């Protein structure tokens, strides 16, 4: 089919041109701008105290969120695949809702629920001293909502194709359900858990819409890296915006490539 005739060639050129125009040239522009004062300028902009704080905040909230998501996503997939209960397929459809809802709307929902002027928000603040909006807790909640489907949807297919004979054997041989889970079930679904967790981490690094509404733009408190980039663009500090942009893109693209490599290896082992 892939004869190199004029038609095939023009298709290939069209594809390459579109990808170059949409992806490659913009990427080159931000890389060039980030390093326009050399590696020293790049590092200096990143190590500026506000930038560094924003980057650290982004990292730890994304890591904590990914850990919670790994546990709750796996449990959700397990319950949805293994238990029959009324409303099961309806709830299963709703798992994808966070992908469909604009992330800005997610932020608005959380502010309505937990905002300092709202009933629940002010109650939490006065009785427990627990701030959610304009604080890291709100960021983590927003990220959990936005990335919820990722772990569930990567673990579900693995749980469905598991060979139950092994589980049965383990149980018949007298292993407890906990041992069976850790020794038999968990190793089988681990690749899915890892893939989903890494993808949600990568997605969280750049999240903007929900976070900017929930956390605002308060340097040294609730300003994340993506919000920091926006602030630097607004205040015309191009070097600062570019350096942080390069850092964010590099980190989350690296994680995505890692997942790709990992999935390919898994599939080739599977096929053998």
């Amino acid at each position, binding site marked *: 089919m892939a004869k190199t005739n004029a038609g095939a060639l023009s298709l290939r050129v069209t594809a390459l041109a579109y990808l170059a125009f949409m992806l490659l040239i913009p990427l080159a522009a*931000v890389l060039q701008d980030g390093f326009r004062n050399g590696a020293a300028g790049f590092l200096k902009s990143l190590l500026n105290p506000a930038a560094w704080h924003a980057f650290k905040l982004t990292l730890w909230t994304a890591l904590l969120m990914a850990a919670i998501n790994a546990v709750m996503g796996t449990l959700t997939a397990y319950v949805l695949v293994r238990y029959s209960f009324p409303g099961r397929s309806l709830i299963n459809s709703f798992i994808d809702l966070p992908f469909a809802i604009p992330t800005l709307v997610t932020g608005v929902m959380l502010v309505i629920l937990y905002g300092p002027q709202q009933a629940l928000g002010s109650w939490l603040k006065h009785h427990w001293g627990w701030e959610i909006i304009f604080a890291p807790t709100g960021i983590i909640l927003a990220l959990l909502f936005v990335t919820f489907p990722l772990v569930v949807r990567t673990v579900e297919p693995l749980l469905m194709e598991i060979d139950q004979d092994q589980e049965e054997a383990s149980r018949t041989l007298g292993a407890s359900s906990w041992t069976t889970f850790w020794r038999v079930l968990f190793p089988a679904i681990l690749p899915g858990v890892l893939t989903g967790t890494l993808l949600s981490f990568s997605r969280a690094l750049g999240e*903007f819409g929900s976070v900017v509404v929930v956390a605002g733009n308060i340097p040294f408190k609730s300003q994340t890296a993506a919000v920091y980039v926006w602030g630097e663009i607004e205040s015309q500090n191009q070097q600062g915006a570019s350096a942080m942009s390069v850092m964010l893109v590099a980190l989350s693209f690296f994680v995505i490539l890692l997942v790709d490599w990992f999935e390919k290896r898994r599939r080739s082992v599977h096929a053998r």
Partner: protein
Amino acid sequence: MPAEIQLVKPIIQRNPWVRPCLLSLVLGYIAFLIFVPVGTLFFSAFSEGAVSFFKVLCRWDVLHAFGLTFFLSVLAVLVNAVFGLIIAWVLVRHDFLGKKFLNALVDLPFAVSPVVAGYMLILLFGRTGWCHAWLQAAGIKIVFSLPGMAIATAFVSLPFVIREVMPVLQEIGLEEEQAAHTLGANGWQTFWRVTFPSIRWGLLYGITLTFARAMGEFGALFVVSGAVSGETETATLFVFRAMDERMYQEAYAVSVVLAAVSFFVLLAMEALKKRIHEEI
């Protein structure tokens, strides 16, 4: 895309507490994370009655914002459906140097923060950008106007069609196409009569995801549009401005409409998933 969920019953559970505990933990988590916030949004939007809700939706700036969002999303769908099909085809059926690199590059929009996506366009087309002198000579304005917003929307929603169509193309293989070819069909006929019917549901699923992503885009547009009310303000940008100016009723009403649209997108996704599952 995930297949439809099937039930795999666990083998005899010895501990009778495991099932109810896990079930209530997971259902409680989903309620806390998804249903309560969504419910609160709907409740708040209608807290001053349906009349004031619809009054908000009849404001001219709100109508304009929805019109712009719809226009940009349809444009992104058209552009990414056509180019996405071509790119998927080339990545699956052609062999050339750097193919692996391009295949990885397609995922870039998933890794780029929306703010950074908008910022890249400013770096290219803005006042200090690479193409600025050339654009000014030609009298074209991209940043802070519609073309920039269209490019930004197409950028963030670029991978979906490609990623949904590629596996289907790989799966259907070459045999039927080669048969059509041997029987004398030309390339175009082969595509329309043989290839297209097998990829159409995958394509439609990709288009649905593209539309959802484009409709909900905020960060990239926020940076690239200038968000001038009644001109370059989309629905999400309106919600942000309304929250900022403490026009909460307006923000909630527009958010509810966006959430309702995404609910229909979800229904479409479910229906398509079933279709794809049946065809395989």
